[in-house]
Structure formats: structure tokens, C-alpha cells
């Protein structure tokens, strides 16, 4: 798709930047912990810009003081799903907010095939457009 020439899934923070190194991820984790956020890990192999509900890897980690605990779980998730998208989400539990404050992808499949635009003609030759990922044409678990 011309509007996304590299085919990378651009969901969440830092998605237009090169992949974050482990040290940079640790720095982000430290920032979130300093603000009192609870980190959680999610993974999916269904690439679509509208896919927001991914599968959880363990419960959200409240009351942590150090990024090492989150990195331990992240390594376990990477070992289990090396070719899936994995993201870290920070939940802000202050009263009145109670929602996700940060979310960025930390692991991507080796080959991201990208998206195509699907056109549908409806009555009177009006067009409806949607996005379809090339990888999603294969069944779950066999995409990457």
C-alpha cells in the first residue's frame, strides 16, 4: 500500500521508529514504573490496524519496582511466540483515568507482508473501501 510502503504495523507508540532495543524498552518500563503504571504483555498474529484486543500473556503486573520483572516475562513471551507481534501496555490506575496510558510493539514477525486496499462496489457504483492484510489470508498460527 503506497501509504505504508514498508508494510509495518503502525499501532501504538514508536511504531514509525526503528525497533526499540532492549535497553530502550527497559528505559520506557522504568519511566512507566516511576509514574506508577502497571505493565502488561499482549501478543497476536492477526495484523490489522483495527485489531485492538490482543491475547494476554499473564496478568497485568501491579506493584512492581523494577523493569527486570517485566523483561523476564517479555523474554518468556518472546521464547513462546518468537514470530508474533508482542506489545507492552501500561495501565494508569489513578481515579478518573483507569485506562491504558502507553502501548508499544516490542516484537514483530520477521516478514511483515503488509496490507492491501479492498474495494467493494455497492449500489449505484458507490465504492466502499477497507484494509486487508496479506498475512491474514492464512489461518491463525500459520501466518508467520
Amino acid at each position, binding site marked *: 500500500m503506497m501509504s505504508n510502503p514498508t508494510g509495518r504495523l503502525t499501532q501504538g507508540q514508536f511504531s514509525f521508529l526503528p525497533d526499540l*532495543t532492549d535497553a530502550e524498552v527497559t528505559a520506557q518500563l522504568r519511566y512507566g514504573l516511576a509514574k506508577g503504571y502497571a505493565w502488561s504483555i499482549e501478543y497476536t498474529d492477526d495484523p490489522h490496524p483495527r485489531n485492538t484486543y490482543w491475547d494476554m500473556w499473564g496478568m497485568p503486573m501491579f506493584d512492581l519496582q523494577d523493569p*527486570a520483572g517485566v523483561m523476564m516475562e517479555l523474554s518468556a513471551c518472546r521464547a513462546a511466540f518468537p514470530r508474533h507481534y508482542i506489545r507492552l501496555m501500561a495501565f494508569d490506575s489513578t481515579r478518573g483515568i483507569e485506562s491504558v496510558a502507553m502501548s508499544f510493539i516490542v516484537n514483530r514477525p*520477521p516478514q511483515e507482508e503488509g496490507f492491501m486496499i479492498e474495494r467493494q462496489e455497492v449500489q449505484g457504483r458507490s465504492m466502499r473501501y477497507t484494509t486487508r492484510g496479506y498475512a491474514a489470508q492464512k489461518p491463525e498460527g500459520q501466518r508467520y
Partner: protein
Amino acid sequence: MSAPSYSIPGTATAAPNAASAPAAQADSSPAEAARTVAEVLQQTQVEAVLAELDSELVGLAPVKARIRDIAALLVIDKLRANMGLATQMPSLHMCFTGNPGTGKTTVALRMAQILHRLGFVRQGHVVSVTRDDLVGQFIGHTAPKTKEVLKKAMGGVLFIDEAYYLYKPENERDYGQEAIEILLQVMENHRDDLVVILAGYKDRMGTFFKSNPGMSSRIAHHIDFPDYAVDELLQIAEQMLKSQNYSMGAGLPELLRQYLERRITQPHFANARSVRNALDRARLRQASRLYADRNRVLTREDLSTLSPEDLRASRVFSSDSAS
């Protein structure tokens, strides 16, 4: 990973903040590379920490000696780093054994603070658990429970009190062994992130280690807490009273010494805890004594002085049998 076919203008290669020697981030002067111990001591808080340790903890010679060794290693590691030699963090897992009331829990709490100020742990908090916080009630419960506790403790100290209760060989449905396995794995792989301190009575910890040699080999520092001598107990009593704004009246220190000498020979003596209990009872008797006279105007000295009669009423002086 598919690399983008464009480059983002203005980005340089990211320089990750290597947190190899956290002590180096504490007050380091990068221009001046220290070559003597004195120069390093000027730059760090090591001396202050050791001085505080000496003044606030009474007795406990083996503990203080071990902490001094760890602090010395920190200083020497700094000098080695300045020379470009490799510096690997030592294994800091510890096991405290000793009789009740010898200060195991107190020192474990202080240890987190000390290690943090020396720069060996990053956050310096303590997570204090017993067996119930690690072992689950049903199959599959133990691993997430233990891992959660370990994640919360990372960056600080995990203090496991009465660690031998984890191992119950006589009950095959017990999940303590699973918790031990997870502990062993994390103690080995996350040596830089977590310090585990076990505590318990010497004989039972001995049996625990004999049946779990993996645990024993991962613990680098086995420290035995000796019983306090009478002089040390007196010093502890003075410190306790001072922190509670009490002072000893005339004749009380000598009487307290006699009390302690008698009490030590009696059964169930719990070192510092027994001293604290005795002082609490003395405070009760002082309160009763002052309560009796309703119309007397009580001065600051009256309210904060314990007199010998508050201690003489103790059973330790009146009878020789077990209290």
C-alpha cells in the same frame, strides 16, 4: 525484521544506558579516575554507611564483618573498572541463622538499605514473605504466585522468613517443591536483579539445605547470628529506651544487668525480644505507679524515667522457677 526502506532524518544509533555498575551512577566524577582507595571513598557513601552500621546495630560481629567485606569489594571494583578490568557483581544471596531475637529480620531490612546505598541493588525495597505467599493451594497455582512475588521483589531484596517450611517431604501433595524450583531458577538467572535472604533457626535450616543442595550452593553468604552478651543486651536496652524517650533512673542499669544475668539462665530466652518485653513490663509498672497518685503534678522527668522498683517487681527476682 523487515528494515524500513527509508531512514528517519536526524536519528543516530541509540546509545543504551548500560547499567552495568549502578554505583557508577551515584556520584562519579568522570574526569578524575580514582587510583587509591581513599579517592574512591571520597566519591561514594561507603564510609557513612559503615559508620551508621556500627553505631545502630549492637554486637553482630560476623554480620558487620561480612558487610565490610562487601563494601570493600565495591571500592576495589571501582578501581578495577577505572583500570579497564572486568568487574562482575558478586552473588549476594544470604542465609541468616540464629536463635530467636538475635536480629535476623532487623538486619535483613537494613541490608536492603545498605546494599542500595552501596549501589548493589537498584531500588532497595524489601519484600518480606513466608511460605504462604509463595506456595499455592491447588495445581497450577504455585508458579504464577511465586513468579509474581519475585517480580515485585526485583530491584530489591526478597526476605523469606522460616524458609524451611517450603520443603515438606512427608506430604506428597505439597507444592512447596515447585516454589523452591522457581526460586532456584530466578536466583541463578537474575542474580543482578534480586537478592534473596533466607532466615530461620540453625538446625532446621541445616536440614533444609542438606535436602536441597541446589539452594545451598546458590547462597554465597551463610551468616550465623550469635546470642548477645549481657553488655550488648544492656546497650540494646539503652537504645530502645532512648528511642521511646525514656531514661533509666538511678540504680536501674545495675539492676537491669542483674535481671539479665538471671533471665539468660532461664528457659525460652529470646535475646533482644526478651529485653523489649521486660522493658515494656517495666513501663507498665511505671504507669501503674504514677497512676496511683492522682493529684501529683507530673513533670517531664517523672513521665520519662523508669526507676528500679519498676523492674524489681519482676518474677525473675522473686522466684527461681521458669516464668
